[in-house]
C-alpha cells in the first residue's frame, strides 16, 4: 500500500492542496454555481502546480 501511495500520490502537501480545492469546488456546486466551481477547480489546480513546483525546487 505504501509503495502505491508513494508512486501515485507521494506528496502529502500536494494531496492536501488538491483535496481543499476539490472541497471548495464541491461546496460551490452545492451552492448552485457549477460553472464557477469549474473555474475555481482549474484555478486551484494551477496554484497547486505552482506550489508543488516551487517546493521541489527548494
Amino acid at each position, binding site marked *: 500500500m505504501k509503495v502505491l501511495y508513494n508512486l501515485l500520490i507521494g506528496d502529502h502537501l500536494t494531496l492536501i492542496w488538491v483535496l481543499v480545492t*476539490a472541497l471548495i469546488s464541491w461546496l460551490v456546486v452545492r451552492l448552485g454555481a457549477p460553472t464557477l*466551481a469549474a473555474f475555481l477547480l482549474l484555478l486551484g489546480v494551477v496554484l497547486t502546480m505552482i506550489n508543488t513546483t516551487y517546493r521541489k525546487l527548494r
Partner: protein
Amino acid sequence: MNWIIALLTFLAATVEWVEALTIVLATGLTMGWRPALRGTLLGFLALALIVAAFGLLLAKLAFLKTILQLVIGLLLLLFGLRWVAKAVLRSAGRVGLHDEDQIFERQVAALRKLAPDQRSAEDQAKLAAMTAQADRAAQAVSFQSVLLEGLEVAFIVITFGVSDHFGQAAAHPLGFAVGGALLALVVVALLGAAVHRPLTQVPENTLKYIVGVFLTTFGTFWAGEGLGVAWPGSDLSLLGLALVIWLATRMLVLRISGRAARTA
C-alpha cells in the same frame, strides 16, 4: 433509425475512447508498453465484469460513475502534478535536489547501465523491485483510464440503446448501440497503433512534459465531472484546460529559468 443510433453511439464513444487512448499512449510511451497494455487489458476485463454483473441496471447506478470519476480524476491529477513539476524543472534547467522520484530514476538508470553479469544478486533483486514499482504505477494509470472511459461508453450505449427517444421506430436498438461503440473502439485502437510509432521520435523530455500536461488536464476534467462542476463546452473544454495548464507551465519555466540566470 437503427443506423442513426449506431452512428450517434459511434461518435460519442469515439470521444471517450480517444480520451482513454491518450492516457494509454502517454503511459506506454513514457513508462513502458508492457505495463500500460496490461493495465488496459485489466481495465477492459473489469469493465466486462461490471457490465456482465449489472447489465442494463448500470443505468440506475450513475453514482458509481460519479464516484469513479472523482477518485480516478483526483489520483490522475496528483500523478500528473508531480510529472508537470518535474517537467517544468527539467525545462528550466533545474532539478530538484531532494526529489525522491529523481533519486529513484537515477538508481534504476545506474543499475540498468551495468551488464547483467556485472550485477550482484542484490543489484538484480533491487532492480527487479524498482522496475516492478514503476510498472505498477503505469499499470494503475492505464487501468483507471480504460475502466472510467469504458464505463462512460457503457452509459452512452445504454442511453442510446434503451432510450425511448426513438420510440418504436427502432428495432433492436441496443445491438446497434453496442455495435457503434465496438466499431469506435476498433477505429480508435487502429488510430493508436498508427500514431504510437511516430510519437516515439519525440524527444523524451518533451514527451514527458506533454504527458504531464495531459495527465493534469484529464485529472482535472474527470475530478470536476465527479464533483458535479459544469465544464463549459463539455468534453471540448479539455482543449481549453490543456491550454491553460500548458501556459501556466510555460510561465513557470520562464520564471524559474530567469531566477536561475539572475543568481548565476
